[in-house]
């Protein structure tokens, strides 16, 4: 039992899973496009956290995981910029960023 109290890989994986679940929940339920984008960021960060913690606990001598995390942060930043630019353009066109109204692809 005492094992559970010391922070280890298990604890960090739980944190990461929670973070990912919150991200998916937000992704599926937020109506505001900016909120959806933020949820995507949460999911991405849970993935980055996974990389770091698995590197830390299972391959301590290496830095591959940390580098991947840095990549993810960079990609996330770029993605946020593109996403926000799309939303701004969309808002100019439709005066709204409500994703429920973006259903022009329905059959």
């Amino acid at each position: 039992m005492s094992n559970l109290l010391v922070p280890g890989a298990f604890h960090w994986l739980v944190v990461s899973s929670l973070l990912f679940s919150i991200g998916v929940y937000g992704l599926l339920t937020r109506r505001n496009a900016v909120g959806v984008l933020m949820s995507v960021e949460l999911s991405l960060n849970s993935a980055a956290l996974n990389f770091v913690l698995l590197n830390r606990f299972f391959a301590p001598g290496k830095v591959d995981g940390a580098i991947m995390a840095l990549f993810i942060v960079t990609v996330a930043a770029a993605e946020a910029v593109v996403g926000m630019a799309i939303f701004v353009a969309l808002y100019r066109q439709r005066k709204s960023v409500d994703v429920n109204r973006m259903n022009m692809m329905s059959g």
Partner: protein
Amino acid sequence: MTGSVDLSFVLANAWLIPAIPFFSFLLVGLFIRPFSERLSGFIATGAVAVSAILAGILAWDYVSFFGRASDGYPAFVSWSAEWLRYQEGLVVNVGTLIDPISVMLLVVVTLVSTMVHLYSIGYMHGERGYGRYFAFLNFFTFSMLGLVLAPNILQMYVFWELVGASSFFLIGFYFERPSAVAASKKAFIVTRFADLGFLLGVLILAYFGQHFFTEVSAGAAEQPFDFLYLTRPEVLGKLASVGSGFFGVGLLTFAMVLVYMGAAGKSAMFPLHIWLPDAMEGPTPVSALIHAATMVVAGVYLVARMFPVFAATSGGLNVVAYVGAFTCLFAAVIGCVQDDIKRVLAFSTLSQLGYMMLALGIASLENPAGYTASMFHLFTHAFFKALLFLAAGAMIHAVHDNEIWKMGGLAKKMPFTHATFLIGALALAGIWPFAGFFSKDEILAAALHGGRYGIFAIGVVAAGLTAFYMSRIYLIAFWGNARTDKASHAHEAPLVMLVPLFVLALLSIVGGFIPLDKIVNISSVGVQQHGHAGIDFMVAIPSTVIALLGILAAWGLYAKQSDTASMLADGFSGLYMTVKRKFYIDEVYLFVTRKIIFPYIAQPIAWFDRHVVDGGVNLSGWSARICGFGLSFLQTGQVQTYGVWLAGGAAGIGILVVTMLLWS
């Protein structure tokens, strides 16, 4: 047999004989016909003439090469190539089988075909579809030669269907005429129906032939479908011991009766004879070539080809003999009262085919005289019947009518046609020294010496009837006064039509003296036979007497334009009408198809097809459409809805994988 000796060029390349008409068919049909109708006639005739010359050389080589050998004339495959490979030990070759009967028929087919081609240049002059006609004639010649040379039963079946198809095209040559269309359809359907039996017989034979193939360990050159394999005594022994199939009938007998059904359809044996008289709707040279001399003898040829197999069955040959004998008499009776000259000749053909069949049926491996006689009769009949049809064509050409009662007095106006027709008629009637006398007497002698007195009696009566109906049409058409304007203005046919008549007339005179029985005997398929020599007066005297009686009866009735004949017809009007309407066989067929098969078999099948089969197909289409319609509601265009399905699906798969990992 073939490997050790050097064959002559033509023997080794016998495939050239059917190949030349085939390429001529392609050339004429595709390239020449659109440009010059006239040229297509010459090219087609030339091609067949080349084939005839090659066939003549082949026959000469065959006879001179093997004539010195003491063990008779051999049967061998001179050329072959692999055609179909189903599996190891089940290969079908295409090739050329050389044996006495195939060499004989090669000569007959190419010779008669050349004569008919030549004659057609004059007869069909100015007709619409002249080029098409010659292309099809070439195609027919190719198919028939392929059939004759077939070394295995499958190649024979394929060419069998090809001759059926070309017969269909040529009967329906005048396709603007509804009667010609109906006749061609009738011929095709009846023979196709018979070929169903042939195919089933082939399948049964092939199944068991293949079954025993490894046990018998035949020579490497032979394959299960080959005639040479099927007629080997040890294979026959095994086939005969297969045991009973249906209703206690041995399986081999059953298979051969089915094969005989195909032969009977092609050779128009009763009750499948109904298509042949109607086939006279085609141009007359076509009737001469296809429906008298060559294609209709394919059935006889098939039975002769498979003769040892028929002989190995119990009772198979009796079926052949009795059906042949019945057809022989039946058709001769009908022939006596028909008024259309081509129909009389058609019924005469039926009757003579019956002769050939009954001769095969009474032969056996121990006493094969009937086999030789049948082939001899096939040989002579091809010449004199083709001659009669071509002469009839010249008369029809002059009078523009088929009806004998519209002719009359043609002897003076068409002297050459008259002379050749008379030769043909005497040959058919069996008067010495014409060809028919010898071959018919051989058949009757075989029946008499085989102890088949009933069949002998039928043959003699039919011979008398033959003499009667030939004299009847001869007297009505050539003697007396012209009955119509056109008959009185008739004039002799052009030279191009007369030359074939002269050639065939010559062959009808000398054909009987050709010593065919020295070459064609069953020794080529295993057993030596004692040669039949000279004229058998036991047979020749009664058959000649009855033929003369038939001629005298016709003379008495028709020589003077009296009304004795019509008075006789009125006196026996019921009988006369029955015979004239061909014993109502066509009506029986119509009744059976229209009143029984259509309402009680075809209609329920059509209903089943329309409602159950089509219904099933429609149901599957309908259910697919409904499913698609329902699923289309899932596509909302909402990315988040799709996301829910995606996440849910991924979670579901994850749970599934984890559960399975835990369980296993």
